């Protein structure tokens, strides 16, 4: 029977939660890298034993860890993220120009086909690639060198590249998203990029449908239909049916269309999950009820999923990388909160159970289906 491994990054270390295919009983290991901020951990689809982890603190900066045995042992690999050439400047919060400065790795995305190739999305926003298992990193500077780069401005969490989606059928095509620049696509393996933000409207901007400047929080796809993308923007849940060429809003009947994560069911490409949050100024669930909303129609029509989730006095947030799905049948959905709970639903969201309740604030959750 297949198993599931959840790789959980928190403010104070990483945790590994494992279960058999029933997903009823869970083993909790950790903390790994205790005391460090673990922004993201992810496994290679090529070899389930190969894991990458982004580890950082304000004191000691960035470390990247790699495991080749499914997380039993780890080794630090390369942590030098040097921007290509003279980095130049981007726009700062006050509208002045500010030098590009590396802060941390937000997201690690292993190649779908090559064990030693892995991508890193970093703050200040850039995309790096390693082809030697994380030992060395090279910037794919065609992204940051886009003519709009000097206009990119940080969101409240920094100017971070947080989403990397690799097209499963066309290895030359990738999507990334940057807060608060927007979404970008390459069709030549990362050499050149262009903004794909047509249809996004952000009322915070003087020109609300400009080419860049949108605070995209997360993009998700189902690999069986990779040119259909779903986006949780700062405000608005959006959908593209043409690989990002255009977007239309599918917020529909959500109680709030602000939020951070978005995920697509592993086997039902029109089943989408979001976690509405009251507002950008409060960052808590509407009505103090933690509700996952599921659409089975590719957006617009949403139902609240509440069974097993706290429906009073709940003031946690769910961050952008903290929701994931497994590949089992029925498909499982998982998310972690800033209150330290990790919830699992082995039945696609109908019922939820807290695997753990008192971890440090959860930054990321990645579900890995094991043979």
């Amino acid at each position, binding site marked *: 029977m297949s198993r599931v491994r959840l790789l959980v990054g928190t403010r104070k270390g990483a945790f590994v939660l494992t279960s058999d295919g029933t997903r009823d009983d869970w083993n909790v290991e950790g903390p790994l890298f205790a*005391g460090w901020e673990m922004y993201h951990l992810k496994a290679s689809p090529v070899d389930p034993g190969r894991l990458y982890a982004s580890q950082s*603190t*304000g*004191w*000691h*900066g960035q470390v990247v860890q790699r495991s080749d045995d499914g997380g039993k042992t780890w080794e630090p690999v390369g*942590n*030098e993220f*040097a921007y290509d050439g003279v980095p130049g400047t981007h726009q700062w919060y006050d509208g002045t120009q500010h030098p590009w400065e590396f802060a941390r790795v937000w997201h690690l995305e292993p190649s779908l086909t090559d064990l030693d190739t892995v991508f890193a999305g970093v703050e200040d926003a850039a995309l790096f690639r390693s082809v030697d298992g994380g030992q060395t990193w090279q910037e794919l500077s065609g992204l940051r060198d886009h003519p709009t780069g000097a206009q990119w401005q940080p969101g409240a969490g920094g100017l971070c590249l947080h989403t990397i989606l690799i097209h499963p059928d066309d290895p030359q095509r990738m999507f990334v998203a940057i807060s608060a620049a927007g979404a970008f696509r390459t069709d030549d393996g990362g050499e050149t990029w262009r903004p794909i933000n047509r249809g996004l409207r952000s009322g915070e901007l003087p020109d609300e449908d400009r080419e860049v400047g949108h605070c995209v929080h997360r993009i998700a796809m189902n690999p069986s239909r990779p040119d259909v993308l779903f986006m949780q923007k700062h405000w608005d849940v959006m959908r593209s049916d043409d690989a990002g060429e255009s977007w239309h809003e599918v917020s529909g009947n959500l109680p709030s269309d602000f939020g951070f994560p978005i995920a697509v069911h592993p086997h039902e490409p029109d089943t989408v999950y979001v976690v509405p949050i009251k507002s950008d100024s409060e960052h808590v669930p509407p009505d103090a009820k933690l509700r996952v909303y599921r659409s089975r129609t590719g957006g617009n029509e949403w139902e609240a999923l509440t069974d097993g989730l706290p429906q009073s006095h709940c003031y946690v947030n769910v961050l952008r990388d903290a929701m994931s799905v497994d590949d089992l049948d029925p498909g499982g959905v998982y998310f972690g909160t800033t209150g330290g709970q990790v919830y699992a639903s082995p039945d696609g969201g109908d019922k939820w159970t807290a695997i753990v309740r008192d971890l440090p604030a959860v930054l990321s959750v990645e579900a890995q289906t094991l043979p």
Partner: protein
Amino acid sequence: MIRVILPQHLRTLAGVDGEVSLDDQEQPTQRTVLDALEASYPALRGTIRDHGTAKRRDFIRFFACGQDITLDSADDPLPEEVASGAEPFRVVGAMAGG
């Protein structure tokens, strides 16, 4: 022998317990000690000083013989007690926050 005491997170990262011992140097400085430390423990590269510029990270301090020598020139000779191994060179994570 030159002795170096690392903060807990860096001891874990380097995979060492207690002090680190480095080979004798004729006239050790902050720079030469840190160069030798990073050569012996590559995992520490970038965690005390930035890659490339070798600029000290903001929340790192250096102590020797009970004195804060953080702001001394990286090329000043360290005290004789550090050169002889009588006293350690201490890398300290500065206290920050509430």
